[in-house]
């Protein structure tokens, strides 16, 4: 090949790079490894990473069963190793599957259009808010304190340089958005209200009442859904103007936080302000049905600095996982799956309530609940760890006002045995905490 090009050495190919910058040494990276060594390396890391633990963690990353055909199908090289479907004639597989994804997301959310995916639930929420700000022409944003705290942080980052002042609206006794506080927070400058339902505590918001308040003031309501399985049994927030979803629950591994699958869904009339790729149906020159990427005039490669977002690469393969999951469970299965989540969580809340206080009982919840204990949740969790169990997420990190409360999650994979064992361990801590307290009191006496 060098001869064909007319060169003597590979080095000549790099002549355009000024000599003083060329690297004359080896990179200091691990030495070349055989495939067997690479596999060993990651198996070892896996063993150091919670392998074999039973977990009660949710909080934006959920452990649901992943039907095996998801990986069989997404491992096909034609899906795995294809690029963005710009060349429609040889990308119909990807395009049609995205069209089906968009259609099912619309069915589940009650919205009219959905995009091909966003990076994740947090960035989808931030971009949905920016979309609402463009649509209303008002820059202020009210955000629920019961929104995932990391989503709130991401929104704050995105909003900083957009001149979008953020106001936080708190939650009431039942864990839902405090409507009185909301009334006070929303003004004539508010372009968007961002809430989550089920919210960060697993509590289902009164979306209709919230939407009424938002709309009364001319603001758009953006609803974030972090636990997609809830859509099987919880009425979707149909009153919302934009829904920003995290679809990880639909067949995507928790993978230590990513890659996940965000998606934005909205009303048809708002579609031209929606960020992200869209697949549309059309016909080819012979009149045959086919699919293409469409409404690209919203996007960066056409509009550059006037685009609705800078997003280019999205989460296509993860959206395919989600698509297959939705197809497997379908109309009946998703409902049954959601019911199992509801039942396990109701059982766990009942058991745990014997040894602590389940907060926010006044409102319906899906598969998470906050449990307040007299003992520090970190102490409880360290006892559970000894039994290869990961307890609920201590909430004080994000909500100091909730003291010793922690957030527990049950899914269809959580067994009754695990719940009973955890309840026993909490009880143990309760009694030990009581005895410690008694001892302290005794000493005081």
């Amino acid at each position, binding site marked *: *090949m060098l001869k064909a090009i*007319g060169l003597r050495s*590979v080095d000549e190919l790099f002549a*355009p*790079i000024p000599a003083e910058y*060329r690297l004359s040494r080896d990179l200091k990276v691990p*030495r*070349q*490894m055989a*495939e067997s060594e690479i596999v060993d390396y*990651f198996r070892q*890391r896996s*063993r150091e*990473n919670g392998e074999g*633990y039973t977990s009660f*963690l949710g909080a934006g990353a959920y452990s649901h069963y992943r039907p095996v*055909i998801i990986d069989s*199908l997404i491992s*096909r090289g*034609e899906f*795995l190793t*294809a*690029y963005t479907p710009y060349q429609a004639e040889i*990308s*119909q597989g990807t395009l049609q599957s995205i069209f089906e994804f968009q259609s099912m997301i*619309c*069915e589940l959310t009650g919205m009219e259009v959905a995009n091909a995916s966003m990076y*994740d639930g*947090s*960035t989808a929420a931030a971009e949905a808010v920016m979309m609402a700000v463009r649509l209303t022409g008002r820059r202020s944003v009210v955000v629920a304190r019961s929104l995932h705290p990391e989503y709130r942080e991401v929104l*704050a*980052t995105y909003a900083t340089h*957009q001149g979008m002042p953020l106001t936080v609206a708190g939650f009431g006794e039942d864990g839902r958005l405090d409507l009185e506080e909301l009334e006070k927070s929303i003004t004539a400058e508010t372009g968007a209200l961002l809430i989550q339902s089920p919210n960060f505590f697993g509590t*289902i918001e009164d979306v209709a009442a919230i939407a009424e308040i938002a709309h009364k003031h001319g603001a758009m309501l953006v609803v974030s859904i972090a636990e997609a399985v809830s859509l099987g*049994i*919880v009425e979707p927030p149909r009153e919302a103007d934009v829904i920003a979803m995290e679809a990880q629950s639909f067949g995507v*591994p*928790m*993978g230590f936080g*990513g*890659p996940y699958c965000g998606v934005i869904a909205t009303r048809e009339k708002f579609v031209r302000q929606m960020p992200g790729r869209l697949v549309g149906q*059309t016909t*080819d020159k012979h009149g045959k049905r086919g699919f293409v990427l469409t409404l690209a005039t919203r996007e960066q*490669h056409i509009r550059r*600095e*006037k*685009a609705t977002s*800078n*997003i*280019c690469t*999205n989460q*296509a*393969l993860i959206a*395919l996982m989600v698509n297959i999951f939705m197809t*497997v469970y379908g*109309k009946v299965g998703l409902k049954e799956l959601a019911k199992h989540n509801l*039942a396990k969580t*109701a059982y766990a809340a009942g058991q745990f309530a014997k040894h602590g206080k389940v907060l926010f009982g006044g409102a*319906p919840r899906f598969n998470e609940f906050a449990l307040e204990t007299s003992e520090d949740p970190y102490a409880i969790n360290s006892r559970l760890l000894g039994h290869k169990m*990961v307890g609920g997420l201590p909430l004080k990190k994000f909500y100091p006002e909730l003291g010793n409360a922690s957030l527990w999650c049950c899914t269809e994979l959580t067994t009754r045995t695990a719940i009973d064992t955890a309840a026993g361990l909490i009880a143990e801590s309760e009694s030990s905490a009581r005895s410690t307290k008694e001892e302290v009191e005794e000493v005081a006496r």
Partner: protein
Amino acid sequence: MKHMTRKATRHVNQNEGLIFEKSSPGKAAWKLPPLDVPEVNTSKLLGSSERKDLGNMPEVSEIEIIRHFTRMSTWNYAIDLGMYPLGSCTMKYNPRVNEAVARVEGIANGHPYQPEKISQGALQILKTLSECLIEITGMDAITLQPAAGAHGEMTGLLMVRAYHESKGNARKKILIPDSAHGTNPATAAMVNYAVENLKSDSRGMVDITALAAQMNEDVAALMLTNPNTLGVFEQQIHKIADILHAKGGLLYMDGANMNALVGKVRPGDFGVDVMHLNLHKTFSTPHGGGGPGSGPVAIKKTLEPFLPTPIVVSKPDGTLGFEYNRPQSVGRVRAFYGNFGMFVRALAYIQANGPDGLRQTTEDAVLNANYIRKGLEGTYDLPYSTPSMHEVVFSDKLQAKKGVRTMDIAKRLIDYGFHPYTTAFPLIVPGALMIEPTESESKEEMDLFIEAMKSIAEEVEEDPQTVLDAPHSTRVSRLDETAAARKPVLRWKPGS
């Protein structure tokens, strides 16, 4: 037919409707275990929040699902089927060991909030990959949080802004060459910077005189792709950096074309202050039909205080943990820690290559691009004769005389069994054909490609209509994009 394609032939390609069209009540592909806790009364638990109906969600059997997606998959072209010479996209082989290790239980199923004590494996992966990427780029620190290249650009510019703000003046604009990717100006807008275009010179490089004239205290940074989108290395890169630095500006490098540099030259050594990488390009993680990507941002020491939170730190007891308390941070750009599964794959790629392999990868990528350039020079117009690195940009100037444009040639290439190159980009080349073979292609595959491109050029002379009507061998041909955009049909509806 005179022009035969040696690579592709027709094969059986099954028809397949939409999944909704296969659905009928009672079919199912799922089975839940018996419930081991008491059943609940959903109406009582949820009240008015209970959902009664899931609309038109499908009901299908498992074999139908397998066939549905398998049939659709056969309508896609993929790297696994052959050369995918999309310029600036670095469509290299996606090693299967990467997929295997990403699915090991503790790695695939780790919860982002599980205690650090039982997250040491994941933390070690984050740390090791960070160290490798810092070494490869010659930078001082890195964040792995951004989910894709454009997200990395945003993160990088947020840090640029924070840096300038810490000096008392956020500045007003970003300079962007006319050859840049569309994400660059779109990102600048998201970080509320104005965009100012910078012209390229006659060799396709940054016009140094223009840069010197446009550079002032209002410019926060120059966003530069190097090698640029013409596949040309900016030979005056250090002069560019000096001009920026002299007026307090920063040099941002878009690392889309890093596959031309790894192991041979390091951006940190030629004056770059901040840059993003695309793990889904340079580091072999699969494109998956459009994502997921991963866009780590590497920076010089001066920008370190502004990194997104959290960062991975070594703790006094020797274990690893996350550090959240960073008052000057630009904040979070994504929930959790980024596209972790992509970090696993990228690290496996680095391990499979080692220092020698990474260097050779770059050499082969550049060698391959130059081999194609030599093979097609004369047949297609080469608008810039400046030496090519990992990609080469031709134009359709010669073929346009017969009314055939770059998109037509691209569509005809499909009939020859190849994915098209990147068309009509960069914008500074009218009718561009942007070709990037990557190191993955053998001489045999590239010879087939060169033969196909030459054959198409002959067809343009003898029978341009064949090219204008292409592709001829696909399920669908020349889809009506105008109709799709004018009256958008973005979802299936019953009866549609």
